[in-house]
């Protein structure tokens, strides 16, 4: 086995036994980057000198690829946008500081949809990322670089972010485990904001156990992010010992299965996953989340509205691109933003500005927030009756580059991941099989209640053990 194929647990064991050093491990990732990145395009930049220096400082360190919207001191942080070309972070995000204190080091910056807006990484303003299982297909998004790096063994594990499915859908497309933590579980300080009532950082890894180890390092209260409560962080990996499906109440919601646009092979794989859980001793519970059909509409009001406010900071004044053609301050704003942002970001800023504008606020944003309450109540009621929901993760396997041209069609990729994001609960994507026609990987989604990550990971781990071969 090559060093770059290792996951976190195996890498730590090898380091502990002295089979290789942290520098050798990091160098193996760098060599793999040189061998494969031209083909896959997972990374935007890789500061080899910094990664090796950090590996020399900490002989226990495991390198982790970082999505290009998380600040690492001295590194670029472009959010895959031309507007941040040349930007260098002055400080480490809290998740980076937390990683370093848990023997992880940032190594390489991976591609994404610009400002995390998209489901294929095709909205990156800086480069193309390809699916390691078929390079004519997308890796998913927005954390497509993270997923391609994990799925293609270009890293040990990666950090992604998830606003409406941006960890889980690419994890499904690239055969990796992705965990979207509950809202507030992980600090966003130093993570460029897209939609602040939804954004979460989470692990993308080669196994559930790896994701659990990394999540324990990332999570916890941070006084720099007022949304992170003082809830202690369990040793998630330790809580996986003895994980079983026996007696677990798995909720099956018809709203996630009888859906137009659900690929028959994804449906088959998800149905089989349900049967495997039942055969392993899980109790299936029929639940209903009646407001599911409104989740997409709520999301495409709330997320653009918050994005339009968050992205107002990119104005060419203090950092980022400044137009050379601006005669006054007004045109400095309008031209710098016009030149720096790509089409999807512009669309969402306009959409968000529209739904917040005078006369429309109550009909759109105000009403969407109330429907969001009803969506959250659906989850509260479901989790009174079951431990975890099992649903499809993405409605299709990875599609071809350039295949989806209409924005609204692209948005439908997040049909199954958006409701849990709106509810603020935690969810995972776990590899479940390969589609028969496309031969592409397909993951299933597990969803648990807020701050119930230990249970989510145990159920995910139990499924990983019974799902069969997915290599």
């Amino acid at each position: 086995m090559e060093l770059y194929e290792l996951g976190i647990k195996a890498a730590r064991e090898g380091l502990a036994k002295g089979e290789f050093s942290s520098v050798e491990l990091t160098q193996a990732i760098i060599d793999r980057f040189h061998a494969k990145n031209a083909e896959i395009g997972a990374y935007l930049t890789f500061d080899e000198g910094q990664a090796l220096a950090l590996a020399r400082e900490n002989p226990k360190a495991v390198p982790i690829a970082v999505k290009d919207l998380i600040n690492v001191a001295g590194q670029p942080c472009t959010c895959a946008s031309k507007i941040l070309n040349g930007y260098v972070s002055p400080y480490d995000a809290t998740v980076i500081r937390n990683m370093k204190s848990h023997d992880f080091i940032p190594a390489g910056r991976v591609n994404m949809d610009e400002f995390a807006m998209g489901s294929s990484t095709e909205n990156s303003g800086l480069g193309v990322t390809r699916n390691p299982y078929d390079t004519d297909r997308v890796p998913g998004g927005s954390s497509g670089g993270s997923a391609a790096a994990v799925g293609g063994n270009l890293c040990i594990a990666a950090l992604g972010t998830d606003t409406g499915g941006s960890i889980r859908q690419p994890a499904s497309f690239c055969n990796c485990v992705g965990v979207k933590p509950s809202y507030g579980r992980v600090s966003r300080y130093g993570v460029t904001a897209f939609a602040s009532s939804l954004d979460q950082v989470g692990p993308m890894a080669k196994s559930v156990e790896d994701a659990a180890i990394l999540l324990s390092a990332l999570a916890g209260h941070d006084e720099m992010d007022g949304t992170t409560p003082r809830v202690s962080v369990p040793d998630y990996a330790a809580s996986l010992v003895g994980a079983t499906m026996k007696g677990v109440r798995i909720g099956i919601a018809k709203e996630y299965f009888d859906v137009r646009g659900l690929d028959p092979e994804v449906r088959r794989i998800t149905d089989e996953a349900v049967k495997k859980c039942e055969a392993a001793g899980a109790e299936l519970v029929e639940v209903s989340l009646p407001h599911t059909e409104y989740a997409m509409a709520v999301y495409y009001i709330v997320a653009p509205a918050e994005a339009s406010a968050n992205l107002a900071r990119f104005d060419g004044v203090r950092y980022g691109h400044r137009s050379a053609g601006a005669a006054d301050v007004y045109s400095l704003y309008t031209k710098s933003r016009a030149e720096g942002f790509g089409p999807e970001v512009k669309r969402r800023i306009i959409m968000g500005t529209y739904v917040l504008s005078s006369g429309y606020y109550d009909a759109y944003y105000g009403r969407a927030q109330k429907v969001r309450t009803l969506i959250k109540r659906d989850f509260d009621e479901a989790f009174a009756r079951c431990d975890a929901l099992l649903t499809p993760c993405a409605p299709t396997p990875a599609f071809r580059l350039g295949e989806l041209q209409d924005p609204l069609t692209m948005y439908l990729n997040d049909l199954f991941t958006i409701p849990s994001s709106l509810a603020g609960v935690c969810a995972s994507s776990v590899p479940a099989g390969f589609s028969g026609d496309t031969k592409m990987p397909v993951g299933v989604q597990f969803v648990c209640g807020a701050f119930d990550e230990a249970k989510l990971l145990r159920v995910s781990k139990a499924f990983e053990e019974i799902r069969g071969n997915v290599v």
Partner: protein
Amino acid sequence: MKIDVGYVAELARLELTDEEKAVFQPQLENIVKYVEKISEVDVEGVEPMMHGRTLVNAFREDEVRPSLAAEAALANAPKRVGDEFLLPKIVEGAES
């Protein structure tokens, strides 16, 4: 629903070409038509959900702490003069 894309883009301080307006107009109207689905839902008496979880104010002691040094904060400035960001003239009649 007819959206005045040019006007909304102005509110967002975003200059659009005529070509972009022509592309965005039907796309945005399509998206708005889709999200209007929420008007079907009865929200009488429902409290709005402002955030991903129920929030309480997060307080801390009001004390002086180290922060980013001026040089680090200015390092990414497109244009600067001394310890200040340099902009085109804002106030009429003032020195630029």
